[in-house]
Structures are given as structure tokens and as C-alpha cells.
């Protein structure tokens, strides 16, 4: 039988066999996430609000999804401790990994430690729907490997300067979602929100941008809806 299709005598081929007794293997790859939890990476510069967003998503989604978190702390257990203290998730559902002083390496070039942590969580909590992997704070070029994260969120904040979206870099331009955080203090730090959002859309084309303040909306409803749309 020709590999490219199945002729059946009337001048055309079907891409797949409609014969219910056909036994050849399925031509289509299984969905890459079949049989495992969906993995969302949250990256962005130091202090932009990655941990606060992670906590907000745990609050928003913890009751409806079987959820776990991997943190990539820089120097202390600060991020993991914050999440544990915040009481948003059973502490056993939070794993912290070390990054050998290179947070971007751990999420992009050599994802072994993070994959191990995800697999430990999947063994401990069978049937996990979602694992959030929070990167250590890094620079504008630090993005997740597609081998680790199925989708990724890049978080910047207004206090980092309203030129950040314009500066671009893979985080701003290629992340599946860009979040501009702390918009409640934009006026105080002299950040022009119109400039930030229009630059962000110009740099990202069709990719979505969400502006938010976790002071005004502590459960990050817009980002939580975006996450729901993926699952």
C-alpha cells in the first residue's frame, strides 16, 4: 500500500483509510500532552510578579483543576515558601528546583531538573491537569523550551519602565501570553500605559496581551480565563 495514501480504483486517494478493518498504525501523532499534565511556564524579569501571579492562578484554579507548581528559586526558598505560606495550595504540591546559578539554562537549554520535578509531582498526584513552572527571575531573552512548557506566559511590570515592551526580545515577542503587571502603580512610576500596550501589540502581532493589577483583581481573572481556554 502506498505510504502517501490509499488508492481505491476511482482516480483519487484518501489521506487515511476508511476501511474499519485496516490495521496499519494511525498516521497522526498523538497530542503531545496526551497522558500527562498540561505544562505552563511563567517567566519574566526579577520582581515583575511571577510568584504573585502563580499564587493568584492557584487561588483561581485550585478548586476546579488538579494542580501543582514547580518553582526555580534563585538563592533561597523564598518563592516556594511564599506559595506555601499563602496557603493557596497543599505544600506537597509545590516542588522547588536548583538552577546552578543559571535560571535560563534550567528552563531552556537543559530542562532536566525541571522535567524531573514535574515527573515527581505526576507520580505523587496521579491525574494532574496542570503544572505551573515558575522560572527564576531572568532577562528579556529567557524563554521556556517547548520541551518543558506547552504554553508560556511572560510577565513584565510597569515599574521596570514603559520601554520594556519596545525593547522586545524573545520573552516579549514570542511568549504565548504577555502580562503587564502592577498597572495600579503606573501613574506613580511615570509609566505611560498607552505606550506600553501599543508597543506590546506592535511587537507581538496577533499574540495576546493582558494588563492587570493583582491589588485590584487578586485572582487574576483574565489570565485564569486564558489558562482555562488552553485546557
Amino acid at each position, binding site marked *: 500500500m502506498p505510504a502517501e495514501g490509499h488508492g481505491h480504483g476511482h482516480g483519487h486517494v484518501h489521506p487515511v483509510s476508511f476501511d474499519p478493518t485496516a490495521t496499519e498504525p494511525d498516521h497522526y501523532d498523538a497530542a503531545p500532552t496526551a497522558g500527562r499534565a498540561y505544562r505552563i511556564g511563567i517567566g519574566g524579569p526579577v520582581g515583575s510578579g511571577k510568584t504573585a501571579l502563580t499564587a493568584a492562578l492557584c487561588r483561581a484554579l485550585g478548586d476546579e483543576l488538579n494542580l501543582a507548581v514547580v518553582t526555580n*528559586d534563585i*538563592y533561597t526558598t523564598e518563592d516556594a515558601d511564599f506559595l506555601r505560606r499563602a496557603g493557596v495550595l497543599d505544600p506537597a504540591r509545590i516542588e522547588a528546583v*536548583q538552577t*546552578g*546559578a*543559571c535560571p535560563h539554562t*534550567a528552563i531552556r537549554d*537543559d530542562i*532536566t*531538573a525541571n522535567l524531573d520535578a514535574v515527573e515527581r509531582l505526576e507520580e505523587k498526584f496521579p491525574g494532574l491537569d496542570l503544572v505551573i513552572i515558575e522560572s527564576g527571575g531572568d532577562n528579556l531573552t529567557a524563554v521556556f523550551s517547548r520541551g518543558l512548557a506547552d504554553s508560556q506566559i511572560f510577565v513584565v511590570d510597569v515599574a521596570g519602565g514603559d520601554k520594556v515592551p519596545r525593547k522586545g526580545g524573545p520573552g516579549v515577542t514570542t511568549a504565548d501570553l504577555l502580562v503587564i503587571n502592577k498597572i495600579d502603580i503606573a501613574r506613580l512610576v511615570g509609566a505611560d500605559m498607552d505606550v506600553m500596550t501599543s508597543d506590546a501589540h506592535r511587537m507581538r502581532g496577533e499574540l495576546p496581551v493582558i494588563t492587570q493589577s493583582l491589588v485590584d483583581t487578586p485572582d487574576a481573572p483574565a489570565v485564569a480565563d486564558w489558562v482555562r481556554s488552553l485546557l
Partner: protein
Amino acid sequence: MDLSALILADSRFPGGGHVHSGGLEEVVARKLVTSVRDLPGFLSGRLRTAGHLAAVFAAASAHAAVAGGNWSRLDSELDARTPSLAQREASRAQGRGTARAGRIAWPSPVLDALLAETPRPHHPIVLGALVGIAGGSPYDAAMAAAYLSVSGPASAAVRLLGLDPFAVNAVVARLDLAAVCAEAAAVAGDDPAALPSPGSPALDLFAEAHARHHEEEVRLFAS
């Protein structure tokens, strides 16, 4: 040297090695290594003890991958020569990472058999097996293992102490890896129980101390 050994020894190899400092983080925390002058002593000591042991088992494993061998026995003999639990865990974490990448790069029934017997293999054993599977020699495997035993701590020293990378690189270049690897390759076919067992009680104790500190305050490196 076989390409497989170069790939496995490359710091760009995605096997999870970059999060291990081989005890360097602990000696830096204790101010036992503070400058590039202190590094040759630490690295040559590590090469002659932990490095030599890793080279011996990598060579033996490369031999076993071709000649046939008992993976469980090799595993338990290396376990017996690694008294620190923290070091055994660091070795198995890197072994699992190396197996994950190695399964895709060098798929083989020999590797499947190794992982069926020892699902979380020690790093030198899976590394040696991969070199043997790819067609490299026990000496090649020993060289990759010995080099990794010092390149990891050397890189950690650059990151933790901000040392001059050229000076650190020169320290590594002056280490006598060839002698260690020749000794390791010479005994690659011996019975696993008869293999040498060089050890460093100081490194063992530092590894344990580092693991305990982890519980109080996470460090940058897993070991």
C-alpha cells in the same frame, strides 16, 4: 576520542549537570576556596578521588556494554564506594538525566536492559554504557567521566566566586586526566568487586553538610 564521549563531556549536553557543583559550593561557603590559587588543590584532589572512581566505573561500563555485564552488580559496587547519601543521589539524578537524553541520541537494547535493571542508574555507569554503545572505548568513557568530575566544579567556581574564566580554564587544562584514565581503562574488564575504590572522606562530609544546608536555605546548586 569518540564523538559520544565529547558530547557527553560537553557542558552543553542537556543531562542536568549544570545544577551540580561537585562540592565546590560547600567549600566556597566554608571559605576553603576563595581564589583561583585554591582551585588546583581542590580540583586535583577531586580528580584523584571522586573523578578516578567515576572514570573507573565509566570504563568498566563501556566494556560491559560491548562484552556483556551485570548492571545490578556494577550499580551496587559503585553504591558501596559512595558512602555519602547526598553524593549517591547527585550521581543518580545526573544518571537519570543522562539516560533521558541518551535514550533519544543512542537508542539501544543494551541501554534498555541497563535501565530495566537499574531505572535510576549512577551517572558514570550510564555514561560509560552510552560511550560503549556508540562505539567508543573504555578510555574514552573514562576521559568523559574524569573531565566532568572537574569541569562542573570549575564552572561553579566561575559562577560563585566570579573568578577569571581564563585562569580557571588553565587550571583544568593542567590537570593530569590522562594518567587517571589510563589506570581506569586498564581495569575496565575486571570483576566489579575488584575495581579500585578511591575515596575522599572530606568530600563525602561536605556533600552531607551541603544537603543539610539545603533544608535550611536552598543553595544555587543541587550538590
